[in-house]
């Protein structure tokens, strides 16, 4: 045996780990905002849009849900330049994460919209609100409240999945870990520390989302 763990390198590495974690947080923050907005538009379009749009959204959801995120990422980063769309790694990662997350959250948001009773819409229309106001002010807030737990889980899954974007050289947490272990030759210790950082991030993110959701959407959010 004779292998002993060594964490002596850690003192010099905290800066790199913190920078990487900050990039991971940035990625998931952008993805959460863009993905949620996109899925609200997508879910509404899937319910009320023209037939062609409904079909297109349906196909999009199925394709994204039945292929690995890593392949989607490679397709966007390596494949798109050959038809003239060149993205830098960070942008490609944000785009891939947003498109991937939206495919899952479109279904979640859709389920929430279905859960709001028809009478709510009718009552709001009867009060003279325009259809768009009815959607934004009456239906959507109630739907978001219902789906908040599912949305939270999806955001955390996406955060964990973002480790993969290190493969296109986005300088996030996993990428920094790869660099560190190449320099220190302490692969196990490096990944062990970074795994714990991920664990803290995911637990912290869950707590933040639940308390933030409770404040924004009122009691009853868990």
């Amino acid at each position, binding site marked *: 045996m004779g292998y002993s763990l060594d964490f002596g390198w850690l003192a010099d590495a905290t800066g790199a780990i913190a920078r990487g974690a900050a990039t991971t947080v940035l990625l998931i923050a952008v993805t959460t905002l863009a993905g949620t907005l996109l899925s609200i538009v997508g879910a509404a379009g899937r319910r009320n849009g023209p037939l062609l749009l409904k079909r297109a959204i349906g196909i999009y959801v199925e394709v994204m849900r039945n*292929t690995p*995120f890593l392949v989607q990422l*490679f*397709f966007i980063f*390596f494949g798109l330049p050959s038809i003239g769309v060149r993205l830098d790694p960070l942008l490609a990662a944000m785009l891939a994460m947003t498109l991937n997350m939206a495919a899952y959250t479109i279904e979640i948001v859709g389920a929430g919209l279905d859960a709001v009773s028809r009478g709510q819409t009718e009552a709001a229309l009867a009060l003279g609100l325009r259809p768009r106001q009815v959607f934004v002010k009456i239906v959507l807030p109630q739907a978001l409240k219902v789906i908040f737990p599912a949305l939270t889980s999806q955001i955390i899954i996406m955060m*964990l999945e*973002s*480790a993969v974007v290190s493969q296109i050289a986005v300088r996030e947490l996993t990428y920094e870990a790869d660099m560190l*272990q190449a320099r220190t030759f302490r692969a196990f210790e490096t990944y062990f520390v970074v795994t714990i950082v991920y*664990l803290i991030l995911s637990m912290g993110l869950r707590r933040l989302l639940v308390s933030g959701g409770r404040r924004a959407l009122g009691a009853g959010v868990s």
Partner: protein
Amino acid sequence: MIEFTFWDIVRNLLLAARWTVLLSLAAFGGGGVVGMLVLFFRIAKNKWARRLASGYIALFQGTPLLMQLFLMFFGLPMLGLRIEPWTAAALGLTFFASAYLAEIWRGGVDALPRGQWDAGASLGLHYLQELRLIILPQAFSITRAPTVGFLVQLIKSTALTSIIGFEELVRTSNAINNATFEPFTVYGLVALIFFIMCFPLTQYARSLERRAT
């Protein structure tokens, strides 16, 4: 210099897809066995056994699969085990799957009315008999849809093992892409192959769900 025709690419990808399928099956089977063990702990009467299993599940659900694979790949050699990408990939995905499957099945056990346990006890069955004859068959049957759904997730997750060097579909496609410089075609085809594997299972899970409600 080897010339790759379109059909060479397809043929090589399909050959590599065999490893993706094999790894998925191994991880699903192994994950099922280990997941049963975790489930026993998770629903045990002993408080500490339950906590241990909860911690195990939280650990695997709260960290990236890629990190789990790295720790497996770099950690096991420290214990003196000679490890190859295949072993690390199969073991890593097995533990990953066990945590998710245990949690899915626990949901099934919890969903059963308390009376099922009481009825078993009043028939004079002991704990293990209750589980084997009454609780688990029902728990498995009501969680069939999410279990199939997780299999889809597992198949997609095998893509990550390309990063620790296991020669499955994605790793092969990287090599082909480096030789042909046709990323659009190559990754498009890889996505298509994954879709063909996953979509029928997704539809199956959906039909199970519909039948259940």
